């Protein structure tokens, strides 16, 4: 947890020697707190101060990286409990299970299906991150053979799940270079698992049914020399897991409790496919670093990935769509032309209503730095010049024969100015997007 300037000041020599380039130790302490200075600037700092300040500057939740290459994922290193306080930084990894005891055909088919779980939403590709290969066969050579198969045939990162240390070793021989997550360590086998993790330089999970046990075990594993640890609370209760994830996050962030300062991976409690996705969605919003699901149907995975896409957006930064001309339906030279702003929520609301109206149309998303119609208007980001320029840039004149522009009802006051500037006839649309279907059906035709 970050220290305040005064807390840091107490640890400094308090000699005001100016060797650090600041007038006083207090000024230096204040700058340290704001991360505008570095402790090494002080030549007389004590060892104690170094260790306290060093610990305070490491992130409260360890960053853990799984996989190698393009699709490697990083989890942890979060700073807040609520996204509005800042933002959530490292999106929850989504893992889909694959059992090593499926017959060859079923195995390869499922692998192929898992590899294909990607979708495009709002112009962005969203996709799962990991395959959780499970050693259900209990057999070492089978597990190793399947691990090699997966490693050779997926772009995704890998979780290897086995409680057997020997089987884990065998599988790692085939794919340690992919930096898989070693899953299977518990109170009994943690030492052997940690030894392999250290040797192969791979991250590992630690499983236990209580947070107290987990805290004990992370301490021990750190002593072996493994730092990339992922917590796994074993429970069949969705409520217990949800509360556990919350307690882990609070302990790490609010209490600087290092023993639980790691990301958490969670399996879903037993349930039908719908419950599995419901649980995974809420664990994603409430602090899981990785969720592992059995579901691999697009209609199950797409909503889950959309929750992640939404919850992990930066709340301080309005999400924007590209400022350009959009075509809804089979628009032609007689279709209506509307404009709105490039704030994604505004744009998609308008687009949704135009779609609902079943009137093919052109929507011009005008660049307003991602602000809504009224905000943009009051900040002078939406005026006749901006609109006219957007129309010219989009070459709308070549797309339609008519010269009629539907403007948002909220900026009706701009009508005359737009008309004068663009020489297009201005039609004032509804104030709320929800009025568009009626408007297009009645006024346009």
């Amino acid at each position, binding site marked *: 947890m970050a220290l305040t300037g005064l807390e840091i000041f107490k640890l400094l020599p308090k000699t005001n020697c100016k060797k650090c380039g600041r007038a006083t130790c207090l000024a230096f302490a204040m700058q340290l707190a704001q991360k505008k200075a570095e402790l090494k600037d002080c030549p007389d700092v004590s060892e104690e101060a170094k260790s306290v300040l060093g610990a305070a500057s490491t992130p409260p939740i360890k960053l853990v990286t799984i996989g190698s290459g393009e699709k490697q994922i990083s989890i942890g290193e979060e700073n807040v409990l609520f*996204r509005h306080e800042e933002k959530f930084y490292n999106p929850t990894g989504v893992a889909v299970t694959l059992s090593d005891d499926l017959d060859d055909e079923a195995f390869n088919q499922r692998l192929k299906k898992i590899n294909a779980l990607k979708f495009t*939403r709002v112009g962005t590709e969203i996709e799962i991150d990991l395959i959780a290969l499970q050693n259900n066969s209990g057999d070492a050579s089978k597990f190793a053979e399947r691990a090699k198969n997966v490693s050779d045939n997926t772009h995704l990162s890998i979780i290897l799940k086995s409680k057997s240390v020997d089987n884990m070793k065998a599988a790692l021989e085939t794919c340690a270079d992919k930096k898989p997550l070693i899953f299977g360590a518990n109170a009994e086998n943690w030492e052997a698992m940690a030894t392999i993790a250290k040797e192969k330089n791979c991250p590992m999970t630690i499983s236990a049914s209580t947070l107290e046990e987990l805290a004990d075990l992370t301490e021990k594993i750190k002593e072996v020399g493994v730092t990339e640890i992922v917590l796994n609370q074993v429970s069949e209760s969705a409520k217990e897991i949800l509360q556990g994830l*919350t307690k882990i996050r609070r302990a790490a962030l609010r209490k600087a409790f290092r023993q639980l300062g790691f990301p958490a991976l969670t399996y879903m409690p037993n349930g039908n496919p*719908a419950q599995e996705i419901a649980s995974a969605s809420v664990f994603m919003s409430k602090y899981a670093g990785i969720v592992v699901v059995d579901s691999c149907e697009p209609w199950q995975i797409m909503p889950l990935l959309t929750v992640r896409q939404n919850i992990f957006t930066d709340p301080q930064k309005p999400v924007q769509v590209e400022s350009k001309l959009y075509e809804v339906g089979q628009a032609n030279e007689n279709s209506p032309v509307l404009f709105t702003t490039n704030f994604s929520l505004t744009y998609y609301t308008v687009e949704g209503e135009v779609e609902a109206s079943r009137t093919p149309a052109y929507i011009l998303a005008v660049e307003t730095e991602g602000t809504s119609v009224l905000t943009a208007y009051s900040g002078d980001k939406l005026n006749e010049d901006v609109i006219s320029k957007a129309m010219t840039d989009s070459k709308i004149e070549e797309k339609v024969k008519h010269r009629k522009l539907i403007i948002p009802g909220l900026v009706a006051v701009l009508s005359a100015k737009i008309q004068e500037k663009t020489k297009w006839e201005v039609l004032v649309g509804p104030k709320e997007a929800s009025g568009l279907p009626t408007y297009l059906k009645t006024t346009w035709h």
Partner: protein
Amino acid sequence: MEIANVVEKCAGVVQEVTIGATKEEGGTRRKTVTIGGANSLPFMDFDGNPGHKPAIAIDVYDIPPEDWPEPLLKHYEDVVNNPANWAKRCAEEYGADLICLKLDGIHPDRGNKSADETVSTVKSILEAVDIPLIIWGCENNERDNEILPKVSEATKGEKCLIGGATQENYKTITAVCLADGHNLITQAPVDINIGKQINILVTDLGFPTDRIVMFQTTGALGYGIEYCYSIHERGRIAGLSGDRQMATPVICDVGHESWRAKESKASDSEAPQWGSFADRGIMWEAITAVTLIQSGVDIIRMYHPEAVSIVKEHIEKLT
């Protein structure tokens, strides 16, 4: 090892609001629904009392819905012209805790139904079901101000939840709900300050805070859910920290918003890459609901019976 104590006690409590009145209480309902009462974040019962479970309201319209995709419409096809039968099915077969009657048909563009006709629709629903009623206007101020007072008067004593009172249009509806003993929905456009302001405006008119339910306008999964998620969360945290004007329960509109999404509407041939059309919309609605529940909501308006049962089972697992 002992872990750090992470219990967080809250100074405030979300207001308890009861919707519906039994015969003894002056109404005709056999069941009433109480929401609110939390002094912890959702499901965090190690912090304090998580309050009443979120309740599910299923929507019924006074006119047949337009553009409902087949996987949804098939559950209502034979009742969309009869709101009373529609409500009865939601109450008896689909597990609704409340019926939310949405009066789209009074809108000038969507039927312009008269006050008399609307009152008789409301009465027919009250006769058909024994659970409490939410009555929601058409968001055309003139028509709402004309019809809602008649509806309020006709249901006096039933302790319905009626809305929505907006910053621009709250006086009439607040006055009639106050006079007829109903609960009131205060409505804001995903804006925490306006949400608080409208609560202040209606309480200034003498409306009691234990009869207010807030509505922050809902965005579906993929369509702005993160905005309303954070507005709900901020509002709930403010309420739990002792801001009394923000300590009212919250309602959200999941059915309507999630079934407008492309992901719910596109057929198998239009979107083969998205998987089964029959299941997709149900998941979209259910996941919108469970995600919003984490942000602190007390009544969820829904459409699809299977989505309702997924969400109810999920709530049971977390309480």
